């Protein structure tokens, strides 16, 4: 299947027009020494229908959320995508365009991005937001980099209840960039307040916590904020489940300096984890230190309202090695998913989303804990995820659930060896009571059979 429109005859005529005979005449600048003298070793071309057949069968080799009842979250959440969202986002004018360097030709994308920035502020309670970063984990990295400052060193304190993959990513960057990451241990499922206080010092550039944290538990953000701001550190709140902001206090309300979040929950396909959507919001005073693209409202030469990229002097294409970040291609289309999604849900729907997740997760948690041998790993308030200590290893439990068409909770012992037999269950609005009851019966049956 080729997408080159011109026929060999046309290409021949074009070659003639530029005074060449064969394409080799044009490729001459490429020295013979580096030329590939054989065809690439790749499978032969397939026609569209054969490609479709091949990929469809590969796709069907996966256990997707349409065919399995899932209680897996741990950073990626299964929410209902309203029908209008893909219909609108997949308008070709949106997805076949590029970065709006020519604003007169890109008002649609620019305006939608301005709306996106506004909505991110509305849900987080922050002042300003950018037009997206790669994902939640790199958004946390950018927050740390912003806190540390250009070329700066120092230390960043990170809660061990921050998503393990985020911590790993942050460590990778910190090592290269040259600042220290120190982890703050846990106490009953949340960041240890005493450890944090002990660790804070004049060199601390930022404190990074996650709310709700990796265990779904709610951190005592006020205490952390006070401790953090008592030094000169920035208070960075990471969010992997922004649907929580429908019900939970927004970081803007408790003094966060930066919110770095994963936005996939808000309307994007879960897609085996990507493309993801890094959300980044901060306070007005930091706007010129913010990474990433920003859209602003302005006027045209006829006095009409219009939108354009702005504050570009922060960016790599202007400031080069002194840019606030190296990001160029971002996750713009995902931002549009979120914009349409949040428009569709709206004020009422977003609150309802938060409340439904909260209620369903609590219904599930109580039902599971009523089973013999299952008990809460922590007694903390939680949002739509909760850790349960199970009577048998989570791996075994999940293998049994899989055979029953279910995807079980996340095996916490993978990242927290001390949490043996602990599973992190997630229950969103996409699960029905029936789904939950099915899980509970299955758990009972599985554990019963092992006795």
């Amino acid at each position, binding site marked *: 299947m080729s*997408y080159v429109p*011109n026929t060999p005859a046309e290409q021949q005529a074009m070659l003639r027009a530029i005074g060449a005979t064969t394409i080799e005449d044009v490729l001459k600048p490429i020295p013979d020494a580096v030329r590939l003298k054989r065809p690439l070793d790749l499978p032969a071309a397939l026609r569209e229908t054969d490609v479709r057949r091949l990929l469809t069968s590969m796709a069907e080799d996966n256990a997707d959320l349409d065919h399995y009842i899932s209680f897996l979250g741990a950073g990626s959440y299964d929410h209902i995508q309203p029908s209008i969202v893909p219909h609108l986002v997949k308008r070709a004018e949106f997805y076949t*365009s*590029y970065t709006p360097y020519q604003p*007169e030709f*890109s008002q649609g994308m620019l305006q939608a991005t301005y709306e996106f920035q506004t909505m991110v502020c509305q849900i987080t309670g922050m002042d300003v937001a950018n037009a997206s970063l790669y994902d939640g984990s790199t958004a946390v990295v950018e927050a740390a980099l912003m806190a540390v400052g250009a070329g700066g060193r120092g230390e960043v304190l990170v809660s061990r209840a921050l998503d393990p993959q985020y911590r790993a*990513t942050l460590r990778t960057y910190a090592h290269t960039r040259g600042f220290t990451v120190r982890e703050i241990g846990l106490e009953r499922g949340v960041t240890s307040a005493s450890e944090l206080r002990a660790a804070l010092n004049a060199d601390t550039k930022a404190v990074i916590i996650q709310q709700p944290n990796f265990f779904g538990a709610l951190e005592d953000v006020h205490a952390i904020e006070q401790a953090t701001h008592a030094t000169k550190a920035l208070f960075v709140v990471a969010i992997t489940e922004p649907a929580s902001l429908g019900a939970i206090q927004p970081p803007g309300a408790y003094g966060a300096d930066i919110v770095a979040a994963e936005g996939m929950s808000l309307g994007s396909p*879960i897609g085996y984890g990507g493309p993801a959507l890094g959300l980044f919001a901060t306070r007005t005073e930091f706007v010129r230190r913010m990474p990433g693209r920003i859209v602003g409202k302005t006027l045209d030469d006829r006095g009409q309202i219009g939108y354009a990229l702005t504050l570009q002097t922060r960016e790599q294409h202007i400031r080069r090695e002194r840019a606030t970040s190296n990001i160029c*291609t971002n996750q713009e289309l995902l931002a549009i998913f979120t914009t349409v999604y949040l428009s569709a849900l709206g004020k009422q729907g977003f609150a309802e989303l938060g409340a439904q997740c909260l*209620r369903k997760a609590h219904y599930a948690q109580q039902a599971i804990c009523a089973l013999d041998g299952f008990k809460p790993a922590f007694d903390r308030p939680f949002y739509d995820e909760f850790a349960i200590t199970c009577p048998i290893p989570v791996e075994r439990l999940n293998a049994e659930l899989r055979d029953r068409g279910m995807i079980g909770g996340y095996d916490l012992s993978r990242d927290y060896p001390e949490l043996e037999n602990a599973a992190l269950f997630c229950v969103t609005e996409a699960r029905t009571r029936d789904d939950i009851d099915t899980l509970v019966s299955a758990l009972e049956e599985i554990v019963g059979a092992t006795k």
Partner: protein
Amino acid sequence: MSTESLIFEKGAPGRAIPLLPELDVPERPLDHLIPASYLRTEPAPLPEVSEIEVVRHYTRLSQRNFGVDLGFYPLGSCTMKYNPKINEDMASLPGFARLHPLVDDSMAQGAIKLLYELEQYIAEIAGMARVTLQPAAGAHGEITGLMIIKAYHESRGDIERNVVLIPDGAHGTNPASATLADYTTVELKSDARGGVDLAHLEATLAQHAGHIAALMMTNPNTLGLFDENIVEIARRVHDAGGQLYYDGANANAIMGITRPGDMGFDVVHLNLHKTMSTPHGGGGPGAGPIGVAPHLVPFLPGPLPAKDDSGYFWEDAGPQSIGRVRANNGNFLVLVRAYTYIRSNGPDGLRHVSESAVLNANYIMRALEGEYDLPFNRACMHEFVLSADRQKKLGVSALDIAKRILDFDMHPPTIYFPLIVHEAMMIEPTETETRETLDEFIALMKQIAREARENPSIVLEAPHKTVVGRLDQTLAARKPNLRWTPEREPATV
């Protein structure tokens, strides 16, 4: 088309779309579930709109946007080629789009297989040993590559290497990535043929002897020119103890013709959203996987897709790995599109892509060289750079020319990049354009050149036919208004 107000200016109090399921568990008061202090006190002030309002608003906004599906988009360096619809269909299959990233490997055999094979395809195309699919974009690939290079030097105790060489024509992400990797950047001058100035390279290597960590370059470079000295450059940098990083943004010129690995590069990123036809989505998402030479394999981020008798699985990275560069498995649905494209084209098809891209660029370049300055008069690769210097003397800048192009339902070239060409216009037609479209663009560029001489005001006042006129970017930056607020007052910052 008339203007379109913001979604926040639409709707009315109480309007809502009942999209969520009816609650089927007990509706307990939220503060019975968690302490009230954790609860949001005011709902987020999101729009209160009906379904038809949302649909009309974003449908209308889409019509205020230009994309490849509407017309020619010769945005240099960005490879705005046709994005096959089948790619979109495959990425929408529930088995891909609805797959949770943390399911057990046994439940993601199709996905891991796809990534395993894609890794091999990219390695083969780039001439590299292994590949990581984690990076979300080119710049993400760059920083990942630099981290690998740094880890490599460190592993050898070679810790004084703090300089990254970057040609003066390079894309801004290259120096920005180098800074992010805590390197100092040193700019390499271009020579009269548009390549790296070998004498300057030599001098720079000498000046920073023992400190050279890497050279980052793209070949063909941002002038669209293939650096014929690449083997020599690679040799000298390697001799100086440096590694070679290949910025693959311009790989659309070389598939099946030459490979960065064969040129001597140690790390290569490919922009799948450029070369492999996945859409740019208005600025993203993309994917910027990197391939590395054998000696750098131990430093790759993990996990990597692997295969044994029992099937496909994720294999953790070894002890020398730099670690993750993001959560989960890369921009997976973008990778599905790229996989689809590579399978559709096959080896001959990919070579034909690159040859055709090169032909199309040369065809336009030769047709326009009489009307605009051509700073380097050599066969170009998949793109080339003109200068509007001649027009600028008549008072018409590259920006004016770009705005005038908008009046004809075509997207302008990249302008003012690379920085080393005055009034640069960087033109990349890509292989998916018909000869007729190229001819139309040529005719338009000639017309504008004539207008610049005969009727400059029509160019200076352009665009005339777009939904808004030229936007005041100074105002936008001076008094930033970055979000709507209920008072409708700009949140000035």
